[in-house]
């Protein structure tokens, strides 16, 4: 599947997911838990899902990360946004936790609207990654796991 084609498909899946999740009220943030620092296991899983080429492994890791978010912080992000380490022309990427897909973007690519703020924050280079929630909340995560919320 072509890169651009895949991106279009995933965006569609995202919006469908967000809509259904909102309907079920599953993604309402639990503010106090959301501020809890992210633990090292999450960082490691994110790194592995980012570099893994095996779809089954990525799906497994994605499920694990979702469960961790649900259990530890009471809310699961739509996706995570981070700097891309593939090198030029890619500058950043989006990790879809629900589809376990990593989508890489060049500077000229536009990202889904709900990830636009996350992209600006990631470009500052100050955060390890940025969580984007269905509620519209954008939470940057520092390299030591502390969050800005």
């Amino acid at each position, binding site marked *: 599947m072509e890169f651009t084609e895949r991106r279009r498909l995933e965006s569609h899946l995202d919006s469908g997911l967000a809509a259904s999740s909102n309907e079920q009220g599953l993604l309402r943030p639990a*503010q*106090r838990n959301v501020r809890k620092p992210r633990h090292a296991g999450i960082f490691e899983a994110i790194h592995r899902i980012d570099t893994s080429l095996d779809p089954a492994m990525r799906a497994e890791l994605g499920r694990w990360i979702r469960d961790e978010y649900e259990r530890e912080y009471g809310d699961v992000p739509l996706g995570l946004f981070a700097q891309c380490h593939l090198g030029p022309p890619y500058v950043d990427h989006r990790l879809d936790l629900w589809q376990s897909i990593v989508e890489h973007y060049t*500077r000229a690519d536009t990202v889904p609207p709900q990830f636009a*703020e996350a*992209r*600006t*924050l990631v*470009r*500052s280079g*100050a955060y390890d990654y940025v969580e984007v929630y269905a509620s519209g909340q954008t939470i*940057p995560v*520092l390299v030591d796991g*502390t969050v*800005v919320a």
Partner: protein
Amino acid sequence: MSDIDYTLRNKVDHVAGMVVQLDQGLTQVSNQVSQVGQRTEETRDRLQKLAADFETFVMIAQRTANVQRAETRTGIVEAQLENQFGHYKLVRRFATGVLQGFDSGLVSQETVRSVSEQLMVQTPRYWLAPVLVALGAWAEDDRELCDRAIQTGYGRSPSRTSLFLALVLRRQGRREASVRWLRQYLTALDPNTLGRDFAMILECVSQGAFGPAGLELVQERLNSWRAQLLNDDAKQQAQVNRWRGEVDVHVGGSSQASFPRLSAVSPQWPALDRALAHANAHGSLITKYTAMAAEEHPSQDRIEDAVDDILDRLVAEFDDEELPLRREHALNQAIIRNDGDMAASQRDLPNDLVALETRLDYLTIQSESALNPSKIGVSRATQRMAVSSCHDWFGRAHAAFSRDYRLGLPTDVEAVFEGNHTGAGVVFNLPRWTGSFTDPIEHLERSLAEHWDRHGRPFIDSMTFNWRKEAVVPGVVIGAAVLFGLLCAGVSSALALVCVFAALIGGGIWFLVLNGKAQTAAKRQQDARALVERGKQDSIAQLRGAGAELLDWTTAYRDADTREPEVRTLIADLAQLGNAPTPYERRVATGA
């Protein structure tokens, strides 16, 4: 024949003279139009400068008036304070004197009693006066009077009377009685509506003014309050907002003067300027809080000295009645401090006013002790301890501050040149040019140069002398004359010769005239080309300068922004300061 020739030549000369005059006139008009355009530009620049100067003048005049008014009001308020509450000072001074008198034994009990009773009469609503009567009665061992005086003082200000007695008894070594008064003081308090005098408790903890039993009692109460209040997200957020105000105070000024070319050409400059000013806050915060973390606060040698200091502060506290005037005084002081800038004064003011509010929750008292120690009446050591207690809110406020200014960074920085950015552009209405600094500067320069060439060429070309157009009329006239001459050849060869000759003479003259016009046009075209070229080079220089300044801005911003982790480390260090032994603990270690 020669008459005709002469007349015709005169006419042609006359026509040629008129054409030359017309041409000169046109050149003159063109120059004048150009001068008018230039003068219009100059006039507009001057008008803009005049408007800016006038606005500055109005602002300075307004600020000067604000300062004068504030100074006048300060004088009036101070006079009112002196008039209405000046005698409270006497009571405060006397309280300190009595305590020292107890130590040295140099003051007779009669003096204490008579003066305290006199002050009691002079200050009918002040809590400290009956408490001093109680002290005098205590020294004389007059229990009945002592009880009545304490009841009166307690009725006027339960919290201050309890705290004062707890401290005085602690000072006199009556520990059990001191803790009883302390418990009395704490039990009556609601952590949501504490008086400003509660800051004294923080001062006592930092100075170790209560004995071990007192400290334990206070710590237990403070911990339970903190846990209770932190369950309320709104209260916590209020503290984070208060600390955000502190972080915002450190935002730097505009750096437009350092980036004149970038600010002139980039529509994103306001966002860039704001981001740099905000990023510079990190350096300012580091300077302020590193100094605080490094400060040494040696404890007093004697516990009595520490208690005396706290008692001094307690008795010197403004009474609630004084607060409206004190608040107005703070407002006027803020205006004077900010040179009449009302907006800056308003930014300064909330912290001051909040510190002067009568009722605060415990968390706010902690924040205020950290942020406005002089207003709430705590020492630098207590301020540092309070900063340590507030590190979580400080950290959250700072992290949110950093996120917010980073979010404000433009995704693209553009250079926009309007037609009037150079004089040349105005002359031929150069359209707007836009380029993005994400492209290499060489590409941008090339694009801008092409823009000038594309729009400058029609202007230059419009000045080209059109031989074909100009030669039509003379060509037709001369041709007609020659044709007429040839037709006349059958009638009169002399007439034909004259016609052809006249046509040739006329043609020659006409050619000379047109050639003169062509040379003038070529000169004007050359001037126009030079003008466009100068404008283009000026424009490219502006673009290059803006590009260089953007690089400088990027370096300055990165340098400032990368100090953010230093602030986080510093806040973590300040949190650790809360674990340092208090003077009280040190005293226990030395057996004091």
